[in-house]
């Protein structure tokens, strides 16, 4: 599935963040839904739950209850809608159109746990024979389609659609994501109700695949769909049908043939309009011109979203931290593990999280793992919890490598007389990050660690410096994680961008650990959930020891709605499909 | 020229300035540009006001029509009586009726005085139509006739010209044509030839003289050029530092100046029979009008000045008492006599 691709386009403007996916083995302590608690800022938070029940009770009937027109603000207007080409790289393409219109095989529930979507009769498991690893290493998935699953033109969904989706992924010019699909050797369509997908080797993140699935009868027979669905998707296999699409607005209406009655929309129409400027977006919410939005976290959100506006903040898949580039051209000394640990021991990360996010959500949580979001799955453990301010540890670590502190209040100095000062980059003009820089500069002074702060425009930092490894040694930015815990590219020992390999690869911390690299690779091959979680936990501990980067906090998702106009919003806070994932359960009031 | 019969050709006083005081704000302070000026313009005569630049003669002219600079100039005392009507008290509407139609004005520099973006014919048409309900084409024909009258060749085509397309002399003729368009009773000509070449000056003056002869109007000629006065005016009023120092028929004043300043001016005037050489000049410079000397304003430059001159402003009086010349000098009797 393409959730992983959501990452890159999320941060426009000053909060740009490069994308990256995480993967990790299970770390036991968290309960099943042990994600970061949503921070309820408004007193009216009881409403959504009530509506949820109402919606469920109504679901058995055929009538779409409530009616009315729901108006939503979209922060980034999709350039085009094709779910296979680069159009799909923008999160808002998925969040505002594809997710609502196109069906998928496996899907994430609102808490980002994988489950069978309404398209499937059941999830393929080892127990039901749907998931098999043969002795020769081939891996077979058997998808049984739901007998009622039907496209909006009345055509049944069949295994041919699964086959077609596979081919379109590979055959389309400019296809965005072929990972996983390349391992598929065959999709058997003998039984229209059963798609048997064979992989050449075990592929653990298989649940990501086939989101969306494409209508073979509608798009085929050509499997190159590069020029299709740029500005309209005229067929639906989801709760909503695309009524119209322009640069001004995008209108969804209920898909009358959607077979899952629990997701029959309650409103007659959804109108999405672009509001790319956060301030204007807030005004539009306040005036009631738009009823709900899912803005990027912005400073002062808690203060500004008062009155009739209710907002919830929490979850989030963007993890922010101090990314360390061990190969930084501007480093004055080797950025050894001891130095990385020492820096981690000089930080009060609780305070940092408070300063960074305190004006957005209450009680922001510190991120304690290096590659996963606590809001997604069970992958994120407390690996980094033991790092707190500890002068004794800092002294021990640095003294061991020959650093001295001639002035007990000054900076550490190494044998060559070089002071322990690290160049630190982030996005210029990003208030949150600059606040963190100011705080940390003060915070580490008593520990003898200094900073040279040089900030860049987002374009310069992420498009020029980051890909060419010309940053840091330290940089502060956010990276994305995915529902599936893959982190292989981030820690692949052969994927360190360098001049020698033409700066390909995405291991931009230049973290060269064979052990971590092997564990990350194993995570992507282990199809057994429990075994996979164990591998993630193992990698998590290795990362906490080696500190390739220092995790700080998760950027929370926000969903804001005008509580005099909308009921039922705010439950998709954690959803990788965006805060509007469950608009079929929203209703218009007043 | 429309209705000559209506016009009085008597020698009765047409325009009478009585004890006029005009103040102008300058960067250096408030200047009394005209200080108790009185003069009379009779029907069918040319009265020249003569004096050095800065003596206040232009402000005197502007005061008559209420055309002083709006923010900086004002009449503080005195009257301007036109046919007995005090123009300083006239309503703006009444003033507009008189301007152009009864009292018209010719300005010094026609290049800046004519609107640069308006065709000269239109400027004359505008003058006519401001006062008479004339149709545009009729007014236009009159404008062409007027241009012809002031000696502009090919007037039909010239009417279509912009001011910058005409020569300096032509422009001044346009000014004259515009000023006489409505056959005004009084024509105020403020240095009408100063901006022109000497040869052109003569032609323009000749035109002005011819027109004034043709028409029944009186002319108030403002000039610094005694030569112009001699050939053109019936009477002359000599102005110095905001005050009139001598006033009378040209022949009498020229023949026997009563005021030392007049005498000095006349002495510095080039004559045909002059031997080449330096002309005598009046020593010193005119006083600062922000704070003029308390007594006679010419006293600092006057060879006859005594204590009384430096302390008491001289009265204006007839001298000789039975003559037609008034003078403001404590020592008028001695001027020319010595």
């Amino acid at each position, binding site marked *: 599935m393409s959730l*992983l*691709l959501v990452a890159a386009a999320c941060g426009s403007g000053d909060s740009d963040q490069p994308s990256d996916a995480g993967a990790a083995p299970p770390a036991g302590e968290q309960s099943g839904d042990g994600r970061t608690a949503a921070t309820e800022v408004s007193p009216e938070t009881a409403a959504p739950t009530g509506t949820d029940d109402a919606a469920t009770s109504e679901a058995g009937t055929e009538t779409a209850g409530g009616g009315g027109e729901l108006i939503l603000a979209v922060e980034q207007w999709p350039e085009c809608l094709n779910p296979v080409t680069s159009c799909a790289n923008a999160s808002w393409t998925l969040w505002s159109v594809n997710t609502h219109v196109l069906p998928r095989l496996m899907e994430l529930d609102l808490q980002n746990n994988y489950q069978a979507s309404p398209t499937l009769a059941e999830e393929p498991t080892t127990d039901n024979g749907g998931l098999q690893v043969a002795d020769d290493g081939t891996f077979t998935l058997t998808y049984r389609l739901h007998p009622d699953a039907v496209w909006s033109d009345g055509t049944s969904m069949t295994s041919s659609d699964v086959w077609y989706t596979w081919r379109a992924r590979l055959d389309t010019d*400019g296809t965005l994501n072929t990972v996983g699909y390349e391992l598929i050797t065959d999709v058997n369509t003998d039984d229209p109700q059963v798609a048997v997908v064979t992989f050449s080797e075990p592929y653990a993140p298989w649940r990501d695949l086939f989101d969306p699935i494409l209508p073979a009868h509608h798009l085929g027979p050509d499997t190159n769909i590069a020029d299709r669905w740029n500005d309209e998707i005229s067929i639906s296999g989801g709760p909503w049908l695309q009524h119209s699409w322009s640069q001004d607005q995008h209108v969804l209406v209920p898909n009358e043939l959607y077979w899952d009655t629990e997701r029959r929309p309650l409103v007659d129409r959804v109108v999405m309009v672009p509001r790319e400027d956060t301030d204007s977006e807030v005004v539009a919410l306040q005036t009631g011109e738009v009823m709900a939005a899912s803005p990027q976290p912005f400073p002062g959100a808690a203060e500004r979203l008062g009155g009739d506006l209710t907002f919830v903040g929490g979850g989030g898949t963007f993890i922010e931290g101090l990314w360390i580039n061990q190969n930084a051209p501007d480093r004055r000394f080797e950025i050894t593990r001891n130095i990385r640990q020492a820096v981690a021991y000089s930080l009060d990360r609780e305070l940092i999280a408070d300063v960074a996010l305190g004006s957005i959500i209450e009680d922001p949580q510190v991120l304690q793992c290096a590659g996963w979001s606590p809001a997604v799955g069970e992958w994120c453990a407390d690996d980094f919890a033991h790092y707190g301010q500890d002068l004794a540890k800092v002294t021990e670590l640095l003294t061991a490598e020959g650093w001295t502190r001639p002035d007990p209040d000054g900076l550490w100095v190494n044998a060559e007389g070089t002071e322990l000062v690290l160049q630190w980059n982030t996005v210029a003009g990003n208030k949150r990050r600059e606040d963190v820089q100011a705080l940390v500069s003060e915070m580490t002074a008593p520990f003898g660690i200094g900073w040279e702060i040089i900030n860049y425009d987002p374009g310069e930092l992420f498009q020029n410096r*980051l890909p060419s490894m010309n940053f840091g040694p330290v940089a502060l930015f956010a990276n994305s994680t995915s529902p599936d815990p893959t982190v292989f590219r981030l820690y692949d020992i052969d994927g360190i961008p360098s001049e020698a390999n033409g700066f390909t690869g995405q291991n931009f911390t230049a973290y060269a650990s064979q052990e971590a690299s092997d564990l990350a690779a194993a995570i992507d091959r282990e199809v057994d959930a429990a075994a996979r979680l164990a591998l993630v936990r193992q990698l998590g501990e290795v990362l906490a020891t080696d500190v390739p980067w220092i995790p700080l906090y998760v950027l929370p998702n926000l969903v804001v709605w005008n509580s005099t106009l909308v009921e039922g919003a705010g439950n998709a806070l954690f959803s990788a499909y965006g805060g509007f994932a469950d608009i079929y359960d929203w209703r218009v009031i007043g | 020229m429309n209705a000559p019969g209506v016009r009085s050709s008597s020698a009765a006083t047409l325009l009478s300035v009585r004890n006029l005081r005009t103040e102008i704000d300058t960067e250096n302070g408030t200047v009394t540009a005209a200080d108790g000026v009185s003069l009379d313009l009779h029907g069918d005569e040319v009265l020249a006001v003569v004096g050095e630049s800065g003596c206040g003669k232009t402000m005197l002219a502007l005061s008559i029509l209420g055309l002083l600079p709006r923010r900086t100039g004002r009449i503080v005392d005195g009257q301007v009586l036109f046919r007995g009507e005090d123009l300083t008290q006239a309503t703006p509407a009444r003033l*507009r009726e008189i301007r152009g139609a009864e009292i018209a004005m010719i300005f010094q520099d026609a290049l800046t005085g004519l609107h*640069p973006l*308006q065709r000269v014919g239109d400027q004359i048409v505008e003058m006519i139509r401001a006062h008479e309900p004339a149709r545009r084409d009729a007014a236009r024909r009159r404008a062409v006739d007027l241009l012809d009258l002031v000696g502009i060749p090919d007037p039909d085509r010239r009417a279509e010209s912009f001011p910058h397309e005409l020569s300096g002399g032509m422009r001044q003729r346009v000014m004259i044509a515009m000023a006489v368009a409505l056959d005004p009773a009084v024509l105020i000509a403020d240095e009408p030839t100063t901006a022109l070449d000497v040869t052109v000056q003569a032609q323009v003056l000749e035109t002005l003289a011819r027109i004034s002869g043709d028409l029944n109007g009186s002319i108030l000629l403002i000039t610094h050029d005694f030569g112009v006065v001699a050939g053109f005016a019936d009477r002359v009023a000599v102005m110095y530092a905001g005050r009139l120092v001598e006033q009378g028929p040209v022949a009498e004043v020229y023949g026997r100046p009563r005021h030392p300043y007049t005498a000095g001016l006349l002495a510095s005037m080039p004559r045909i029979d002059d031997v080449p050489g330096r002309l005598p000049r009046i020593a010193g410079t005119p006083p600062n009008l922000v704070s003029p000397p308390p007594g006679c304003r010419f006293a600092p430059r006057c060879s006859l000045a005594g204590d009384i001159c430096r302390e008491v402003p001289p009265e204006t009086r007839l001298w000789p008492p039975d003559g037609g010349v008034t003078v403001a000098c404590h020592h008028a009797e001695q001027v020319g006599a010595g």
Partner: protein
Amino acid sequence: MIAYALRRLAITVPVLVVISFGTFWAAGQISSPTAQLTLNPRISPETKQAYVELLGLDRPLHVQYGKWLGNFVTGDFGTSLVKNGQDVWPFVERALANTLLLVAAAVSLSLLIGLAVGTISAIRQGSLWDYGSVTVSFLGISIPVFWLGLMLQLFFGLYLANWLGVGPPLLPTAGIYSPGQQGFDLLDRVRHLVLPTLALSLQLVAVYSRYMRASMLEVMSADYIRTARSKGLRESRVVVRHGMRSALVPVTTQVAIDIGQLVGGLIVTERVFQYPGMGLLFLDSLEGGDYTILLPTVMIAAVVVFALNLVADLLYGVLDPRVRLGRDRRVARNV
């Protein structure tokens, strides 16, 4: 005059080429259509490379530029890099129409108000009105458009409606049509034009009124105004037909020249009010790394600005018969 115009054009062409290349180069430096792919972990380097080749981004810069320029001058705007091969022109055309409408509305409104305010200030120099309008125009020039836009949104969208106790906002705060509106609706369209026009106009009114005030002050002390009064003309005619007629000459040309300075405010205004014009298209294509849209957007803006400068010069000649040779006379900038 014609020769002069042609000479000006001849100078303009190389300037436009330089601008276009500079834009082309800068677009490649600060944004890239593949940048978002680079950091996407699920996209293999091979996929990215295939994508780069598909878009022709691996060719040398001057080759890409030459290809683009060749198409552009022959009127072929090509297809979008980022919008999956959709034709560029419809996007640009729509944005251009919207922006021209907004600019025309703002400039007309600003001229109407600015010229009147400036004229009254000049003829009542030193009055309370004059000091008031000078102060207001100083504020108008100092207030950032961005902030003004937000204040207008809040005031007309929120506070005024709340204060009057009416439900929906008095004026829509963004977009060009109400959400859900299908097809053309003149009233709705005009209502959506009001706030962006106001936001763009305040600064213009301030600038225009100061130009007009300075120009009128100069003109009204001219000799020919005194001549006009001496002719017995009504004061209104003196001010309008003689004073404003002259004062408008430098102001008009300055207004045409100033159109270029509108660009910044326009971008901000369109962003704040989500007004789908050239400014918003520029921002979107910049953020999306789509030089295929960025370039025509910038080029059209540049051509319009240059054209208006030329028009301004020629206009001076038309408005002022004294300047038929295209000599450059503009109102002093520090008015």
